[in-house]
Protein backbone atom coordinates (compact mmCIF):
# COMPACT_ATOMS: atom_id res chain seq x y z
CA UNK A 1 0.00 0.00 0.00
CA UNK A 2 1.39 3.39 -0.96
CA UNK A 3 2.03 6.31 1.39
CA UNK A 4 -1.05 8.32 0.37
CA UNK A 5 -3.34 5.32 0.72
CA UNK A 6 -1.83 4.19 4.03
CA UNK A 7 -2.42 7.62 5.56
CA UNK A 8 -5.79 8.23 3.88
CA UNK A 9 -4.44 11.38 2.23
CA UNK A 10 -6.99 12.78 -0.18
CA UNK A 11 -6.77 15.23 -3.06
CA UNK A 12 -7.70 18.72 -1.82
CA UNK A 13 -7.72 20.17 -5.33
CA UNK A 14 -5.86 23.40 -6.20
CA UNK A 15 -5.25 26.02 -3.53
CA UNK A 16 -3.14 29.10 -2.90
CA UNK A 17 -0.92 30.43 -0.14
CA UNK A 18 -2.81 32.59 2.38
CA UNK A 19 -1.11 36.00 2.40
CA UNK A 20 -2.04 39.17 4.32
CA UNK A 21 -2.77 41.41 1.27
CA UNK A 22 -5.63 39.05 0.35
CA UNK A 23 -7.18 38.77 3.83
CA UNK A 24 -9.74 41.48 3.16
CA UNK A 25 -11.05 39.55 0.14
CA UNK A 26 -10.78 36.15 1.80
CA UNK A 27 -12.55 37.16 5.02
CA UNK A 28 -14.91 39.65 3.42
CA UNK A 29 -16.09 37.65 0.43
CA UNK A 30 -15.14 34.02 1.21
CA UNK A 31 -14.22 33.44 -2.45
CA UNK A 32 -14.24 29.95 -3.91
CA UNK A 33 -10.87 28.27 -3.35
CA UNK A 34 -10.20 24.57 -2.79
CA UNK A 35 -7.76 25.04 0.10
CA UNK A 36 -5.09 27.28 1.63
CA UNK A 37 -1.53 26.75 2.73
CA UNK A 38 -0.15 28.87 5.57
CA UNK A 39 3.47 29.54 6.48
CA UNK A 40 3.71 27.83 9.87
CA UNK A 41 6.16 30.34 11.37
CA UNK A 42 3.67 33.19 10.91
CA UNK A 43 1.36 31.47 13.38
CA UNK A 44 3.75 30.32 16.12
CA UNK A 45 3.52 33.52 18.18
CA UNK A 46 1.99 33.77 21.63
CA UNK A 47 -1.13 35.59 20.57
CA UNK A 48 -2.45 38.52 18.59
CA UNK A 49 -4.40 38.90 15.39
CA UNK A 50 -2.53 36.25 13.40
CA UNK A 51 -4.06 33.42 15.41
CA UNK A 52 -7.52 35.01 15.28
CA UNK A 53 -7.23 35.24 11.51
CA UNK A 54 -6.04 31.65 11.29
CA UNK A 55 -9.11 30.51 13.19
CA UNK A 56 -11.36 32.41 10.79
CA UNK A 57 -9.54 30.90 7.81
CA UNK A 58 -9.70 27.32 9.04
CA UNK A 59 -13.38 27.58 9.79
CA UNK A 60 -14.06 28.50 6.16
CA UNK A 61 -11.43 26.42 4.28
CA UNK A 62 -9.10 23.43 4.51
CA UNK A 63 -5.72 24.69 5.75
CA UNK A 64 -2.32 22.97 5.61
CA UNK A 65 0.75 24.34 7.48
CA UNK A 66 3.97 24.63 5.51
CA UNK A 67 7.11 25.40 7.52
CA UNK A 68 10.43 27.01 6.66
CA UNK A 69 12.37 26.55 9.90
CA UNK A 70 12.56 22.86 10.77
CA UNK A 71 15.99 22.82 9.07
CA UNK A 72 15.93 19.03 9.03
CA UNK A 73 19.44 18.79 7.62
CA UNK A 74 21.03 20.95 10.33
CA UNK A 75 23.18 19.04 12.76
CA UNK A 76 21.64 21.15 15.52
CA UNK A 77 18.14 19.82 16.19
CA UNK A 78 15.10 22.11 16.22
CA UNK A 79 14.47 23.49 19.69
CA UNK A 80 11.84 21.92 21.95
CA UNK A 81 10.25 25.39 22.01
CA UNK A 82 9.85 25.42 18.22
CA UNK A 83 8.58 21.83 18.06
CA UNK A 84 6.11 22.47 20.87
CA UNK A 85 4.67 25.45 19.04
CA UNK A 86 4.54 23.59 15.74
CA UNK A 87 2.73 20.74 17.46
CA UNK A 88 0.23 23.20 18.93
CA UNK A 89 -0.34 24.77 15.50
CA UNK A 90 -0.83 21.41 13.80
CA UNK A 91 -3.23 20.34 16.55
CA UNK A 92 -5.17 23.59 16.11
CA UNK A 93 -5.47 23.19 12.32
CA UNK A 94 -5.78 19.36 12.18
CA UNK A 95 -4.43 19.14 8.62
CA UNK A 96 -4.09 15.90 6.60
CA UNK A 97 -0.30 16.52 6.54
CA UNK A 98 2.24 19.22 7.36
CA UNK A 99 5.37 20.03 5.41
CA UNK A 100 8.84 21.58 5.39
CA UNK A 101 11.99 21.43 3.27
CA UNK A 102 14.92 19.16 2.55
CA UNK A 103 17.54 21.63 3.67
CA UNK A 104 19.52 22.99 6.60
CA UNK A 105 19.42 26.51 8.09
CA UNK A 106 20.53 26.42 11.71
CA UNK A 107 24.09 26.34 13.06
CA UNK A 108 25.95 27.63 16.13
CA UNK A 109 22.65 28.71 17.68
CA UNK A 110 21.82 30.90 14.67
CA UNK A 111 18.71 30.68 12.52
CA UNK A 112 19.88 31.66 9.06
CA UNK A 113 16.34 31.99 7.63
CA UNK A 114 17.22 30.26 4.40
CA UNK A 115 16.64 26.87 2.80
CA UNK A 116 20.25 25.83 2.38
CA UNK A 117 21.01 22.77 0.25
CA UNK A 118 22.45 19.57 1.68
CA UNK A 119 25.48 17.71 0.42
CA UNK A 120 23.93 14.65 -1.22
CA UNK A 121 25.73 11.84 0.57
CA UNK A 122 24.78 8.59 2.31
CA UNK A 123 25.61 10.18 5.67
CA UNK A 124 23.27 13.09 4.93
CA UNK A 125 20.48 10.70 3.92
CA UNK A 126 20.79 8.89 7.26
CA UNK A 127 20.92 12.16 9.22
CA UNK A 128 17.87 13.76 7.59
CA UNK A 129 15.81 10.54 7.63
CA UNK A 130 16.40 10.13 11.38
CA UNK A 131 15.45 13.75 11.99
CA UNK A 132 12.23 13.40 9.99
CA UNK A 133 11.24 10.29 11.96
CA UNK A 134 11.74 12.22 15.21
CA UNK A 135 9.69 15.15 13.95
CA UNK A 136 6.91 12.94 12.62
CA UNK A 137 6.74 11.16 15.98
CA UNK A 138 6.67 14.46 17.89
CA UNK A 139 4.02 16.14 15.75
CA UNK A 140 1.90 13.04 15.25
CA UNK A 141 0.76 13.71 11.66
CA UNK A 142 2.06 12.62 8.24
CA UNK A 143 4.95 14.78 7.09
CA UNK A 144 5.71 15.89 3.52
CA UNK A 145 9.26 16.79 2.53
CA UNK A 146 9.79 19.45 -0.14
CA UNK A 147 12.67 19.62 -2.62
CA UNK A 148 14.32 23.07 -2.58
CA UNK A 149 15.70 25.31 -5.32
CA UNK A 150 19.48 25.46 -5.23
CA UNK A 151 22.25 27.63 -6.58
CA UNK A 152 25.24 25.51 -5.59
CA UNK A 153 26.56 21.97 -5.77
CA UNK A 154 28.91 20.34 -3.27
CA UNK A 155 32.09 18.51 -4.25
CA UNK A 156 31.29 15.73 -1.79
CA UNK A 157 27.83 14.90 -3.20
CA UNK A 158 27.69 11.34 -4.46
CA UNK A 159 24.19 11.13 -5.96
CA UNK A 160 21.81 13.29 -8.00
CA UNK A 161 19.12 15.25 -6.20
CA UNK A 162 16.22 12.99 -7.25
CA UNK A 163 17.99 9.96 -5.77
CA UNK A 164 18.82 11.88 -2.60
CA UNK A 165 15.22 13.05 -2.12
CA UNK A 166 13.88 9.57 -2.79
CA UNK A 167 16.37 7.85 -0.46
CA UNK A 168 15.50 10.23 2.39
CA UNK A 169 11.74 9.79 1.88
CA UNK A 170 12.01 6.00 1.67
CA UNK A 171 14.19 5.72 4.76
CA UNK A 172 12.09 8.19 6.79
CA UNK A 173 8.85 6.80 5.40
CA UNK A 174 7.46 10.27 4.79
CA UNK A 175 5.48 11.96 2.07
CA UNK A 176 6.78 14.36 -0.57
CA UNK A 177 5.78 17.90 -1.41
CA UNK A 178 6.97 18.03 -4.99
CA UNK A 179 7.83 21.61 -6.01
CA UNK A 180 7.74 21.69 -9.79
CA UNK A 181 9.19 25.20 -10.02
CA UNK A 182 12.09 24.24 -7.74
CA UNK A 183 12.94 21.32 -9.98
CA UNK A 184 12.92 23.66 -12.98
CA UNK A 185 15.09 26.29 -11.23
CA UNK A 186 17.67 23.76 -10.03
CA UNK A 187 17.67 21.94 -13.38
CA UNK A 188 18.47 25.22 -15.16
CA UNK A 189 21.07 26.24 -12.59
CA UNK A 190 22.87 22.90 -12.57
CA UNK A 191 22.10 21.58 -16.02
CA UNK A 192 20.22 18.38 -15.18
CA UNK A 193 17.15 16.86 -16.80
CA UNK A 194 13.96 18.01 -14.99
CA UNK A 195 11.85 15.33 -16.68
CA UNK A 196 14.17 12.58 -15.43
CA UNK A 197 13.67 14.00 -11.92
CA UNK A 198 9.87 13.78 -12.22
CA UNK A 199 10.08 10.28 -13.64
CA UNK A 200 12.25 9.02 -10.77
CA UNK A 201 10.54 10.04 -7.52
CA UNK A 202 8.12 7.54 -5.94
CA UNK A 203 4.66 8.69 -7.07
CA UNK A 204 2.81 7.11 -4.14
CA UNK A 205 4.67 9.39 -1.69
CA UNK A 206 3.73 12.67 -3.42
CA UNK A 207 0.95 14.24 -1.35
CA UNK A 208 1.18 17.77 -2.69
CA UNK A 209 2.73 19.84 -5.49
CA UNK A 210 3.88 23.46 -5.54
CA UNK A 211 3.77 25.85 -8.48
CA UNK A 212 5.37 29.30 -8.47
CA UNK A 213 7.16 31.90 -10.52
CA UNK A 214 10.86 32.72 -10.44
CA UNK A 215 13.30 35.42 -11.59
CA UNK A 216 15.97 35.11 -14.24
CA UNK A 217 19.06 36.77 -12.80
CA UNK A 218 21.07 36.34 -15.99
CA UNK A 219 23.69 33.88 -14.82
CA UNK A 220 21.24 31.89 -12.74
CA UNK A 221 17.55 31.59 -11.89
CA UNK A 222 16.32 32.66 -8.45
CA UNK A 223 13.25 31.14 -6.81
CA UNK A 224 11.38 34.32 -5.87
CA UNK A 225 7.66 33.38 -6.04
CA UNK A 226 7.25 36.81 -7.59
CA UNK A 227 5.57 36.14 -10.92
CA UNK A 228 3.27 33.92 -12.96
CA UNK A 229 4.21 30.28 -13.41
CA UNK A 230 6.21 30.17 -16.64
CA UNK A 231 5.33 27.97 -19.62
CA UNK A 232 8.14 25.39 -19.17
CA UNK A 233 7.00 24.89 -15.54
CA UNK A 234 3.40 24.37 -16.72
CA UNK A 235 4.73 21.71 -19.07
CA UNK A 236 6.60 20.01 -16.23
CA UNK A 237 3.43 20.20 -14.11
CA UNK A 238 1.53 18.47 -16.90
CA UNK A 239 4.08 15.64 -16.80
CA UNK A 240 3.99 15.53 -12.98
CA UNK A 241 0.18 15.27 -12.88
CA UNK A 242 0.36 12.50 -15.47
CA UNK A 243 2.79 10.61 -13.27
CA UNK A 244 1.53 11.40 -9.72
CA UNK A 245 -2.20 11.54 -10.44
CA UNK A 246 -4.80 13.57 -8.56
CA UNK A 247 -2.54 15.25 -6.01
CA UNK A 248 -3.30 18.49 -4.13
CA UNK A 249 -1.63 21.45 -5.82
CA UNK A 250 -0.75 24.84 -4.37
CA UNK A 251 0.17 28.08 -6.15
CA UNK A 252 2.71 30.17 -4.18
CA UNK A 253 3.09 33.92 -4.74
CA UNK A 254 5.12 35.78 -2.08
CA UNK A 255 6.70 38.83 -3.72
CA UNK A 256 5.05 41.43 -5.96
CA UNK A 257 1.84 39.88 -4.69
CA UNK A 258 -0.90 40.43 -7.29
CA UNK A 259 -4.61 41.02 -6.81
CA UNK A 260 -6.69 38.14 -5.51
CA UNK A 261 -8.21 37.70 -8.96
CA UNK A 262 -4.84 37.23 -10.66
CA UNK A 263 -3.84 34.63 -8.07
CA UNK A 264 -7.22 32.88 -8.31
CA UNK A 265 -6.83 32.81 -12.11
CA UNK A 266 -3.43 31.16 -11.75
CA UNK A 267 -5.00 28.50 -9.53
CA UNK A 268 -7.82 28.09 -12.07
CA UNK A 269 -5.25 27.51 -14.81
CA UNK A 270 -3.65 24.75 -12.72
CA UNK A 271 -7.08 23.28 -12.04
CA UNK A 272 -7.92 23.23 -15.75
CA UNK A 273 -4.62 21.68 -16.76
CA UNK A 274 -4.91 19.07 -14.05
CA UNK A 275 -8.44 18.18 -15.09
CA UNK A 276 -7.36 17.85 -18.71
CA UNK A 277 -4.41 15.53 -17.92
CA UNK A 278 -6.39 13.40 -15.48
CA UNK A 279 -9.35 13.12 -17.84
CA UNK A 280 -7.03 11.94 -20.60
CA UNK A 281 -5.65 9.28 -18.27
CA UNK A 282 -9.13 8.22 -17.15
CA UNK A 283 -8.50 9.19 -13.51
CA UNK A 284 -11.19 10.67 -11.28
CA UNK A 285 -10.91 14.41 -10.53
CA UNK A 286 -12.87 14.98 -7.38
CA UNK A 287 -11.23 17.25 -4.88
CA UNK A 288 -12.33 16.55 -1.30
CA UNK A 289 -13.95 19.54 0.41
Amino acid sequence: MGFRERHGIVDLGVGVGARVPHYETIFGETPAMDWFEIISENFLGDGGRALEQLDKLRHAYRVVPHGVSLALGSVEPPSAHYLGRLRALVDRVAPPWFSDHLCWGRVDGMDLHDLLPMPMTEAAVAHVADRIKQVQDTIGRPFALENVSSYLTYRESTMPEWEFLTEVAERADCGLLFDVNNVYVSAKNHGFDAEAYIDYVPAHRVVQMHLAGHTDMGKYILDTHSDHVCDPVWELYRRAVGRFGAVSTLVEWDENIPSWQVLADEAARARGLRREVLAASGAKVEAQP
Partner: protein
Amino acid sequence: MSSLFELQRRFGDALRSGTALVAEGAPEEHVTFAQDAMQGGARLSAVEQLEVYREQFWFRHLASLQEDFVAVEHLLGKERFQALVRAYLEEHPPRHFSLQRLGDAMPELVRSAAPWSSDPFLVDLVAVEQAFVFLFDAPDAQPFDPAMLANVPEAAWPLATIRLSPAFRILHLGSEAHLYRAAVRTGEPAAVPERKPTHLAVARGKTSLEYMVLGEPQSVLLEKLRAGLALGEACERTQRELAIDAADFETQLGGWFQGWTAWGWLVGIDPPA
Protein backbone atom coordinates in the same frame (compact mmCIF):
# COMPACT_ATOMS: atom_id res chain seq x y z
CA MET B 1 34.97 18.53 4.51
CA SER B 2 35.53 16.77 7.78
CA SER B 3 31.90 16.66 8.92
CA LEU B 4 28.44 17.99 8.22
CA PHE B 5 28.68 20.24 11.28
CA GLU B 6 31.99 21.70 10.14
CA LEU B 7 30.57 22.39 6.68
CA GLN B 8 27.52 24.10 8.15
CA ARG B 9 29.59 26.15 10.60
CA ARG B 10 31.91 27.47 7.87
CA PHE B 11 28.93 28.07 5.55
CA GLY B 12 27.15 30.05 8.29
CA ASP B 13 30.28 32.16 8.89
CA ALA B 14 30.55 32.93 5.17
CA LEU B 15 26.89 34.00 4.97
CA ARG B 16 27.48 36.58 7.69
CA SER B 17 30.43 38.13 5.87
CA GLY B 18 29.87 41.87 5.45
CA THR B 19 31.94 41.79 2.24
CA ALA B 20 30.83 40.20 -1.03
CA LEU B 21 32.79 37.00 -1.61
CA VAL B 22 33.39 37.95 -5.22
CA ALA B 23 34.70 41.42 -4.33
CA GLU B 24 38.31 42.43 -4.06
CA GLY B 25 39.41 42.00 -0.47
CA ALA B 26 36.86 39.25 0.23
CA PRO B 27 37.79 37.34 3.38
CA GLU B 28 40.26 34.65 2.37
CA GLU B 29 38.82 32.00 4.68
CA HIS B 30 35.39 32.20 3.04
CA VAL B 31 36.80 32.14 -0.49
CA THR B 32 38.92 29.11 0.39
CA PHE B 33 35.90 27.41 1.95
CA ALA B 34 33.84 27.97 -1.23
CA GLN B 35 36.61 26.59 -3.41
CA ASP B 36 37.08 23.55 -1.15
CA ALA B 37 33.41 22.70 -0.65
CA MET B 38 31.54 23.87 -3.74
CA GLN B 39 31.73 22.32 -7.15
CA GLY B 40 31.00 25.37 -9.29
CA GLY B 41 29.36 24.87 -12.63
CA ALA B 42 28.86 26.17 -16.15
CA ARG B 43 26.87 29.19 -14.93
CA LEU B 44 28.55 30.13 -11.64
CA SER B 45 31.98 29.51 -10.14
CA ALA B 46 32.24 27.91 -6.69
CA VAL B 47 32.66 31.32 -5.04
CA GLU B 48 29.78 32.84 -7.02
CA GLN B 49 27.55 29.95 -5.93
CA LEU B 50 28.19 30.70 -2.26
CA GLU B 51 27.85 34.44 -2.90
CA VAL B 52 24.24 33.94 -4.07
CA TYR B 53 23.38 32.69 -0.58
CA ARG B 54 25.45 35.37 1.22
CA GLU B 55 23.66 38.07 -0.73
CA GLN B 56 20.24 36.57 0.03
CA PHE B 57 21.13 36.36 3.75
CA TRP B 58 21.83 40.08 3.71
CA PHE B 59 18.79 41.11 1.60
CA ARG B 60 16.37 38.97 3.61
CA HIS B 61 17.41 40.35 6.99
CA LEU B 62 17.74 43.91 5.72
CA ALA B 63 14.21 43.73 4.27
CA SER B 64 12.83 42.38 7.53
CA LEU B 65 14.43 45.18 9.58
CA GLN B 66 13.34 47.79 7.03
CA GLU B 67 9.77 46.64 7.53
CA ASP B 68 10.09 46.82 11.33
CA PHE B 69 12.00 50.12 11.50
CA VAL B 70 10.42 52.24 8.78
CA ALA B 71 10.75 55.50 10.72
CA VAL B 72 14.34 54.75 11.75
CA GLU B 73 15.29 54.27 8.10
CA HIS B 74 13.50 57.51 7.25
CA LEU B 75 15.50 59.32 9.95
CA LEU B 76 18.89 57.85 9.07
CA GLY B 77 18.58 57.62 5.30
CA LYS B 78 19.24 54.47 3.29
CA GLU B 79 23.04 54.30 3.65
CA ARG B 80 23.25 54.94 7.38
CA PHE B 81 20.38 52.56 8.01
CA GLN B 82 22.24 49.83 6.12
CA ALA B 83 25.33 50.57 8.21
CA LEU B 84 23.21 50.19 11.34
CA VAL B 85 21.82 46.86 10.10
CA ARG B 86 25.33 45.59 9.33
CA ALA B 87 26.51 46.54 12.81
CA TYR B 88 23.42 44.94 14.31
CA LEU B 89 23.68 41.63 12.46
CA GLU B 90 27.38 41.46 13.30
CA GLU B 91 26.62 41.89 17.01
CA HIS B 92 23.28 40.09 17.12
CA PRO B 93 23.06 37.38 14.45
CA PRO B 94 19.53 35.94 14.02
CA ARG B 95 18.85 33.43 16.79
CA HIS B 96 15.09 33.00 16.60
CA PHE B 97 13.12 31.04 14.05
CA SER B 98 10.83 34.01 13.52
CA LEU B 99 11.99 37.08 11.60
CA GLN B 100 9.49 38.94 13.78
CA ARG B 101 12.00 38.62 16.62
CA LEU B 102 15.02 39.67 14.52
CA GLY B 103 15.12 43.25 15.83
CA ASP B 104 14.58 42.46 19.51
CA ALA B 105 18.05 43.64 20.53
CA MET B 106 18.10 46.75 18.33
CA PRO B 107 17.23 49.08 21.27
CA GLU B 108 20.12 47.60 23.24
CA LEU B 109 22.56 48.16 20.36
CA VAL B 110 21.65 51.80 19.70
CA ARG B 111 21.73 52.56 23.44
CA SER B 112 25.20 51.13 23.89
CA ALA B 113 27.19 51.33 20.65
CA ALA B 114 28.80 54.33 18.97
CA PRO B 115 27.98 56.24 16.86
CA TRP B 116 24.29 55.41 17.40
CA SER B 117 24.25 55.95 21.16
CA SER B 118 25.15 59.62 20.78
CA ASP B 119 21.80 60.36 19.09
CA PRO B 120 19.15 60.32 21.85
CA PHE B 121 16.28 60.71 19.38
CA LEU B 122 17.44 57.65 17.46
CA VAL B 123 17.52 55.70 20.73
CA ASP B 124 13.91 56.76 21.45
CA LEU B 125 12.66 56.01 17.98
CA VAL B 126 14.19 52.53 17.89
CA ALA B 127 12.59 51.76 21.26
CA VAL B 128 9.17 52.86 19.98
CA GLU B 129 9.31 50.90 16.72
CA GLN B 130 10.62 47.76 18.43
CA ALA B 131 7.84 47.92 21.04
CA PHE B 132 5.22 47.95 18.30
CA VAL B 133 6.81 44.92 16.62
CA PHE B 134 7.07 43.05 19.92
CA LEU B 135 3.45 43.68 20.84
CA PHE B 136 2.13 42.52 17.48
CA ASP B 137 2.16 38.87 18.55
CA ALA B 138 2.77 39.18 22.28
CA PRO B 139 0.76 36.71 24.38
CA ASP B 140 -3.00 37.11 24.66
CA ALA B 141 -4.58 37.50 28.09
CA GLN B 142 -8.15 37.07 29.23
CA PRO B 143 -9.81 40.48 29.58
CA PHE B 144 -10.10 41.75 33.13
CA ASP B 145 -13.55 41.29 34.61
CA PRO B 146 -14.42 44.43 36.59
CA ALA B 147 -16.74 42.27 38.73
CA MET B 148 -13.58 40.80 40.24
CA LEU B 149 -13.01 44.13 41.96
CA ALA B 150 -16.16 43.68 44.00
CA ASN B 151 -14.90 40.36 45.32
CA VAL B 152 -11.84 41.91 46.91
CA PRO B 153 -12.58 43.05 50.51
CA GLU B 154 -11.59 46.65 51.13
CA ALA B 155 -9.05 45.69 53.75
CA ALA B 156 -7.29 43.37 51.30
CA TRP B 157 -6.62 46.02 48.64
CA PRO B 158 -3.29 47.31 49.96
CA LEU B 159 -1.84 43.80 49.87
CA ALA B 160 -3.33 42.80 46.51
CA THR B 161 -1.11 42.49 43.46
CA ILE B 162 -2.27 43.59 40.03
CA ARG B 163 -1.45 41.66 36.85
CA LEU B 164 -0.77 43.71 33.71
CA SER B 165 -1.35 42.50 30.17
CA PRO B 166 1.68 40.87 28.52
CA ALA B 167 0.73 42.89 25.43
CA PHE B 168 1.41 46.19 27.22
CA ARG B 169 4.61 48.19 27.62
CA ILE B 170 5.68 51.52 29.07
CA LEU B 171 8.53 53.40 27.42
CA HIS B 172 10.35 56.25 29.14
CA LEU B 173 11.51 58.49 26.34
CA GLY B 174 13.24 61.84 26.01
CA SER B 175 10.96 62.94 23.18
CA GLU B 176 7.61 62.25 21.54
CA ALA B 177 9.21 59.82 19.14
CA HIS B 178 5.87 58.07 18.56
CA LEU B 179 4.60 61.16 16.72
CA TYR B 180 7.55 60.99 14.34
CA ARG B 181 6.82 57.28 13.76
CA ALA B 182 3.16 57.97 13.10
CA ALA B 183 3.97 60.76 10.64
CA VAL B 184 6.39 58.59 8.65
CA ARG B 185 3.96 55.67 8.56
CA THR B 186 1.12 57.83 7.28
CA GLY B 187 3.25 59.70 4.77
CA GLU B 188 2.97 63.03 6.62
CA PRO B 189 5.94 65.41 6.95
CA ALA B 190 8.02 64.17 9.91
CA ALA B 191 10.17 66.49 12.01
CA VAL B 192 12.44 65.51 14.89
CA PRO B 193 10.59 66.73 18.00
CA GLU B 194 12.02 68.84 20.81
CA ARG B 195 13.47 67.01 23.80
CA LYS B 196 10.73 66.44 26.35
CA PRO B 197 10.39 63.66 28.94
CA THR B 198 7.63 61.36 27.66
CA HIS B 199 6.09 58.30 29.29
CA LEU B 200 4.47 56.29 26.54
CA ALA B 201 2.13 53.34 27.10
CA VAL B 202 1.92 51.01 24.10
CA ALA B 203 -0.61 48.18 24.05
CA ARG B 204 -2.30 45.81 21.69
CA GLY B 205 -5.98 46.72 21.67
CA LYS B 206 -8.86 44.69 20.30
CA THR B 207 -8.17 45.62 16.70
CA SER B 208 -4.89 47.49 16.57
CA LEU B 209 -1.75 48.58 18.40
CA GLU B 210 -2.46 51.70 20.44
CA TYR B 211 -0.41 54.24 22.37
CA MET B 212 -1.08 56.85 25.02
CA VAL B 213 1.12 59.43 26.73
CA LEU B 214 0.92 59.08 30.53
CA GLY B 215 1.74 61.45 33.34
CA GLU B 216 4.80 60.47 35.34
CA PRO B 217 2.86 59.28 38.44
CA GLN B 218 0.79 56.81 36.39
CA SER B 219 3.82 55.48 34.57
CA VAL B 220 5.82 55.03 37.78
CA LEU B 221 2.93 53.31 39.55
CA LEU B 222 2.31 50.97 36.61
CA GLU B 223 6.01 50.01 36.53
CA LYS B 224 5.90 49.17 40.24
CA LEU B 225 2.76 47.09 39.79
CA ARG B 226 4.38 45.27 36.87
CA ALA B 227 7.37 44.56 39.11
CA GLY B 228 4.97 42.72 41.45
CA LEU B 229 4.73 45.17 44.34
CA ALA B 230 1.47 45.03 46.28
CA LEU B 231 -0.86 47.91 45.51
CA GLY B 232 -0.39 49.68 48.85
CA GLU B 233 3.39 49.59 48.70
CA ALA B 234 3.46 50.59 45.03
CA CYS B 235 1.28 53.63 45.77
CA GLU B 236 3.27 54.62 48.82
CA ARG B 237 6.60 54.44 47.01
CA THR B 238 5.28 56.34 43.99
CA GLN B 239 3.98 59.16 46.22
CA ARG B 240 7.24 59.33 48.13
CA GLU B 241 9.53 59.23 45.08
CA LEU B 242 7.59 61.90 43.22
CA ALA B 243 6.68 63.90 46.36
CA ILE B 244 2.97 63.83 45.52
CA ASP B 245 0.38 64.85 48.02
CA ALA B 246 -1.33 61.71 49.38
CA ALA B 247 -4.85 63.12 49.09
CA ASP B 248 -4.30 64.19 45.46
CA PHE B 249 -2.87 60.82 44.64
CA GLU B 250 -5.81 58.93 46.12
CA THR B 251 -8.28 61.14 44.28
CA GLN B 252 -6.73 60.25 40.95
CA LEU B 253 -6.19 56.55 41.64
CA GLY B 254 -9.80 55.48 41.01
CA GLY B 255 -9.90 57.18 37.61
CA TRP B 256 -6.59 55.65 36.62
CA PHE B 257 -7.86 52.18 37.48
CA GLN B 258 -11.00 52.69 35.45
CA GLY B 259 -8.96 53.79 32.43
CA TRP B 260 -6.45 50.94 32.70
CA THR B 261 -9.30 48.44 32.92
CA ALA B 262 -11.19 49.93 29.97
CA TRP B 263 -8.05 49.94 27.79
CA GLY B 264 -7.29 46.30 28.62
CA TRP B 265 -4.01 46.97 30.40
CA LEU B 266 -5.08 45.11 33.56
CA VAL B 267 -5.77 41.41 33.32
CA GLY B 268 -6.07 40.25 36.91
CA ILE B 269 -5.96 40.99 40.61
CA ASP B 270 -4.56 38.62 43.18
CA PRO B 271 -5.75 39.23 46.73
CA PRO B 272 -3.29 38.33 49.49
CA ALA B 273 -3.27 34.63 50.33
